[in-house]
């Protein structure tokens, strides 16, 4: 009877399992996406609509997906890794898991926004900014390092699990040294209020829940477009010139498998249409020529960012260790 019951029910389970949630279809393009679904899925939808290619997207944090790719190794079902920052891409590239991108695609993007060895490519750029509530913060901190001072206790929103924050910490480590970076992180354990995402920090600063926060510039612009600039409570500021708190970074893409569809997808991300999407919908900086950034954005070259090679962000593993040592994760 037991066996018969089993025999009777097994096909049911099978059918349900397969129909309900088709496990990774062999022919589909599998994208590991470290970016917010709300920001990138509309673009992927357009891609599907135009090409008819079947796409499966796995959303998670960029660092989490990098770690997952490393754990999976050659067994990984992923074809493309779409990361929120250059560091996660660099870390996967360092493990030799990324295919080289062809020269014709590389040539579209300026050298400082892609891997030196051609293993990954920036598709849009962003800038770290200080988001603050002008009613609560009148004296702006000069440097991001100042946020470690006692007067900022419990006032600064940060997102330690977020790749953009982690990239900033890598830059902080490499520019100021591990000792200073660890001290700063430990101070932020007291001064910081921890959120999961940049968007959550902006939400909290807008609501007056925290006085300021470290985010990427475009979250503010997206919100401003939604509710009108004049209705924004919070403002954006940069730190002093060359401060690591003003880091320029890219969201980028790397090719994991040899599936030709992967290359096609990368090509699409660098098309004028996709780049215009980043300008109009996500308010990031486009990275190909002849596309102008969103009106009102400071030109990327005028940002008082530190001189920093994005290839060096690949030391992500050590950064994560340091953030964990400080007890922020």
């Amino acid at each position, binding site marked *: 009877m*037991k066996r018969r019951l089993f025999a009777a029910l097994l096909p049911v*389970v099978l059918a349900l399992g397969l129909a309900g*949630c088709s496990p*990774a279809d062999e022919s589909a393009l599998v994208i590991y996406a470290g970016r917010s679904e709300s920001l990138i899925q509309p673009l992927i939808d357009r891609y599907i609509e135009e090409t008819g290619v079947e796409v499966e997207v796995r959303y998670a944090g960029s660092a989490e997906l990098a770690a997952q790719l490393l754990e999976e190794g050659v067994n990984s079902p992923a074809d493309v890794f779409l990361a929120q920052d250059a560091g996660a891409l660099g870390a996967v590239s360092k493990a030799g898991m990324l295919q080289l991108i062809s020269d014709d695609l590389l040539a579209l993007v300026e050298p400082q926004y892609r891997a030196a060895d051609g293993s990954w490519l920036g598709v849009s750029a962003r800038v770290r900014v200080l988001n603050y509530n002008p009613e609560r913060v009148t004296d702006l901190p000069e440097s991001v390092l100042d946020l470690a001072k006692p007067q900022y206790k419990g006032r600064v929103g940060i997102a330690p699990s977020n790749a953009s924050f982690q990239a900033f910490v890598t830059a902080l480590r490499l520019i100021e040294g591990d000792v200073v970076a660890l001290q700063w992180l430990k101070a932020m354990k007291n001064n910081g209020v921890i959120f999961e995402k940049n968007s959550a920090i902006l939400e909290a600063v807008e609501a007056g829940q925290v006085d300021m926060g470290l985010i990427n510039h475009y979250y503010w612009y997206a919100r401003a477009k939604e509710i009108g600039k004049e209705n924004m409570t919070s403002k954006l500021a940069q730190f002093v010139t060359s401060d690591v708190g003003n880091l320029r970074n890219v969201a980028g893409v790397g090719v994991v498998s040899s599936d030709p569809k992967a290359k096609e997808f990368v090509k699409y991300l660098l098309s004028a249409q996709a780049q215009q999407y980043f300008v109009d919908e996500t308010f990031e900086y486009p990275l190909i020529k002849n596309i102008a950034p969103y009106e009102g954005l400071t030109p990327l070259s005028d940002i008082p960012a530190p001189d920093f090679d994005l290839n060096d962000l690949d030391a992500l593993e050590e950064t994560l260790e340091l953030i964990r040592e400080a007890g922020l994760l």
Partner: protein
Amino acid sequence: MLGVFAAFLAILPVTYLVLRLAQGLDAALLELLRPRTLELLINTVLLVMSVSVTALAIGLFQAWFIVRTQLPWPGLFALLATVPLAIPSYVLALGYVSVFPWFSGFWASWLVLSLATSPYVFLSVAAALMRSDVASEEVARSLGLNSWSIFWKVTWPQLRTSTTASSLLVSLYVLAEFGGIAILRYDTFTRAIYNAYRSSFDRTAAAALAVVLVLITVLILLIERRFRTDYLSLRTSNAKRLRKTIKVMPLVVASLSIIGLLAVILPLGSLINWTVVGGRIFDFSLLVEALANSVLVSLAASVMIAMFGMAMAIWLVLHRQRLATLCEGIIWSNHALPALVIGLSLVFFGANSVGALYQSIWLLLIAYLILFLPNAMAAMVTPLSQVPMAMTEVSRSLGKNYGKTLRKVVLPIAQPGLVAAIALAMLTVVKELPATLLLRPTGTETLATRLWQATEELAYSQAAPYALTLVIIAGLPALALNASVRATYRGVSSQ
């Protein structure tokens, strides 16, 4: 044999976790010797203890006044005291933070979890109060004891068993709790394990923390065993139920109303409000898709659980073999383990050992099986054991073979109970968050994972519709079913 296979699956997680730990012992030790581990330990223990005490106080308070006094609208208050069971703790947490954005940290987690777990105490204590012997209280009163002395000397000893049992349930619940605590941003082991998993290239750290959590769970189980008392109330008579009138009744009504307001009306009200406000910009096609996924996955899981549960229950009840009891014990050993730990160990197992299962629906179904088989099995044993032995014997003596007897006699009689047990398993699967988060196949989003993602961005208007759907399709039916399953239990225990 399915039972043996289920038992094998059941020992898989912890075994694999320990293996993983042994491989990276240095890294694991480094992780555990950090001051951070101590901080997590203190946070976790603090929360477990404070919530246990508070939930106990709330549950006792509700149960005593609802069962023992002439409270107006006792039915309404009993309902208010039970309904939080239908609200997953992460939904409750969401309900709160969407009204009060600043609501976070220890006190927030304490309040939300106390409200979420007090129904366990309430139900258990209320049942004990109804069973308990009122006559001895009357004797005590006639001997001149005041109300307080009667409570402590006569009533309390009769409630001890049920309070200890429900406190154990509450502590294990809090230890395993993940979603609510993460939304309220309070660092306990579960949240730290999840973060270590997400943001560390060497995932041994997550395994190390998970093992500590397992050890705490085992410790709590051992402590409970030490203090467990088997007080059997001597039921002298089916005495009339004594319902006291008391002077401070308005105060009691007010307190009970406030608890109900906090536990049910405020969070659900907030979610309804956000759904209505945000409805314009909400993508309902995503909700429909997530709903369909949730239903399909949980249906598949419950069919699987039913299969294994039935096999185990039949094996246990009708055959009473020693091997069956052993397998039952092994399967049960997992039921106190946090879902996050099970999920994590299966990720390790899947990524390294069985590539074909990795990121497939099967690994997720296995996780659900490990997590929910114990309860389903227990719920199925009851209706099966109610089938009179004599009837199966008659059937056999009339020449029906074993299989036919099972099909024609045993299963039809036990059917309603079995169906209820399976349905309950299915509804529990729908609400599961942490294992689903770790193991769901690429591109498969359920109600719980969608809610989770929206919450990470503090996008309440996007999260609220998922939360409400969860409560309506899983929470409330589960509550109703639970009541009927409990009723069959009670029927058996009084036989």
